[in-house]
């Protein structure tokens, strides 16, 4: 009974998403030989480690009601800078990684300041950041630079064994540790509560005296950091730097968050849901790879269909089950803002 009572509009998407993941995995296990193994499951973490890390940063941004389109290109820029410094300037891995992480943070701070203090749209600012980071990649080199440094290869090949056969890569462990830190930040710190408060209603958050400006800039910084960390994981995974790495990753990250139950209006969502969202995208790719006869573009169509189903489901449940009002809530929402005095203002 206690368990049932905890199922509400906020946790239901998470539960449905998890059930869907189990169902997809079960479908794969029944349909294909050797799909049901610990390694296939762990491979989801290994192959999607960088997506998990990037999606964590994205989830924080979305929780504040913002969006970060620059994550994919910051990943690419990180791989490019790493490859250039390691290969052409022979820097040590221990000097390069802190540097690129700092660079990601700097990118995030810059965009956060533009969004907060110049009151610019997150969409436009991070779009500019996307162009800038992608463009800087091509300034370094338009070709792919492969990383031959032995320490990168060592990290890449190291296996953390679980029992006889199953293993995780270092990247996957880094991703899981990042996730744990992210969950701690979101659920158990003042920063996390402020993030949720800003997403719920920024005006109220300001009136409550919460440090809104600082938190918003921190959130974009965190996303920049996660993108750079994701980029480091990509260098371990791909052992190369390339301006076309992680093309469209921002959309995968947003899709993972949405499938995981995060509302793009902000204020509602769990990082655990985002993890399951990434795993679902991963399991779809595994299913298509195991099938062999389906073409790769079915992945995109499947993700689109899933997105659609989950969004429709959220529409019906986000207002505590009152289905009729849920249908009209998009049009009713500004009314609440209007009474607070912002909705009725003309744009200029």
């Amino acid at each position: 009974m206690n368990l049932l009572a905890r199922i509400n509009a906020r946790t239901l998407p998470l539960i449905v998403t998890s059930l869907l993941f189990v169902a997809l995995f079960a479908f794969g296990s029944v349909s294909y030989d050797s799909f049901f193994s610990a390694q296939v499951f762990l491979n989801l973490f290994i192959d999607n480690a960088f997506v998990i890390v990037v999606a964590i940063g994205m989830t924080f941004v979305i929780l504040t009601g913002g969006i970060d389109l620059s994550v994919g290109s910051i990943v690419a820029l990180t791989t490019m800078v790493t490859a250039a410094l390691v290969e052409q300037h022979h820097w040590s891995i221990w000097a390069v990684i802190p540097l690129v992480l700092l660079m990601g943070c700097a990118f995030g701070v810059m965009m956060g300041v533009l969004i907060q203090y110049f009151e610019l749209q997150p969409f436009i600012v991070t779009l500019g950041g996307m162009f800038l980071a992608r463009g800087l990649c091509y300034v370094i080199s338009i070709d792919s630079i492969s990383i031959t440094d032995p320490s990168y290869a060592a990290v890449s090949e190291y296996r953390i064994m679980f029992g006889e056969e199953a293993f995780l890569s270092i990247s996957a462990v880094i991703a899981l540790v990042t996730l744990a830190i992210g969950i701690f930040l979101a659920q158990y710190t003042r920063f996390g509560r402020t993030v949720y408060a800003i997403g719920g209603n920024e005006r109220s958050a300001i009136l409550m005296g919460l440090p809104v400006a600082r938190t918003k800039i921190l959130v974009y910084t965190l996303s920049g950091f996660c993108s750079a960390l994701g980029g480091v994981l990509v260098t371990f995974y791909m052992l190369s730097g390339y301006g076309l790495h992680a093309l469209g990753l921002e959309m995968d990250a947003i899709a993972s968050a949405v499938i995981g139950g995060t509302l793009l209006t902000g204020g509602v969502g769990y990082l655990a849901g985002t993890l399951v969202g990434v795993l679902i995208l991963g399991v779809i790719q595994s299913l298509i790879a195991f099938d062999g006869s389906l073409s790769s573009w079915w992945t995109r169509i499947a993700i689109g269909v899933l997105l659609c189903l989950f969004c429709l489901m959220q529409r019906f449940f986000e207002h505590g089950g009152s289905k009729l009002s849920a249908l009209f809530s998009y049009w009713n929402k500004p009314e609440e803002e209007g009474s607070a005095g912002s909705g009725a203002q003309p744009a200029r």
Partner: protein
Amino acid sequence: MKPDTFRNLIRNPLFWPCVTLTLLCAVNFYFNRGFFDIEIKDGHLYGSVIDILNRAAPLMLIAMGMTLVIATRGIDISVGATVAIAGAVAAAMIGGSLVIKDGVQTYVSNVPMPLAIAGALGVALLCGLWNGLLVAGAGMQPIVATLILMVAGRGIAQLITEGQIVTVYYEPFFFFGNGFLFGIPFSLYIVAVVLIILLLLIHRTALGLFIEAVGVNPVASRFSGIQARTLVFSVYAFCAVTAGIAALIITSNVKSADANNAGLLMELDAILAVALGGTSLAGGRFHMIGTLIGALIIQTLTYAIYSLGVPPEINMVVKALVVFGVCVIQSPALREILAKHAFRTREVA
């Protein structure tokens, strides 16, 4: 009252877009004295300006549709995918094969061209109806609703082209993207027709007012008797149709349909054009002419980068810096500071 005139000018929403475009043209003229030259070759107008206008045509079309969507507080990030789908349909339906007719080799289309055009536009309209259904019918946030088609759209386009680049061999189809009518590129006539229809609808009917009303306050607009949902529904449909027309021009221009790259990042360029044109992404007031200027700014910038001999790789960096620059210039925060210093008067918000 000179300061007043100046202040009015500076507060005109078209002021900053025009200044940006003029500056860009000046930069182009400085480095390339022949920038404004237009000559007549074979009865066609040739010149840098004509080239920029011609190449900006697809972006102008999509940006016009996007302006209306944004004016209703929405956004459509699926236009790039719609371009890919419509382009794939057009190319697949026309295709073209070599036949020998009366001893002469000619290319014929798979289906009559009007049918193919109707097919492509029809599919684009379907995409728009789908978006409209999700936004106005199911009440999803516009960015999520159109994200669905954006993610799935290129997959669908690849399904149509079966993962190949479909080449078009049918001569009359190339007229859209490369043809000239009375010396002027044909694509510009398409832009002009769409623009005139839009301006008539916006200024001669109450439609423009309705759209702005929905953008400013959807609930109030509904209470005042505007069919807000129908309006939003049709705005998404219209935006997708402009993307379909743009797809015809693009497909005809490159004579092929590439499901992966056709219209790539087009949605972002279109939104950028709208923002550069002075329309707030928060909805409400919109400026159709400003949007056209915004699209021209983007194309002129690209042209400047190429003509300056800057490596094309840096194109994106420059574009990013321009985005930041223009956004900061247009930001209310900076304007307030400037207004305080320039006129020593406090603006009443």
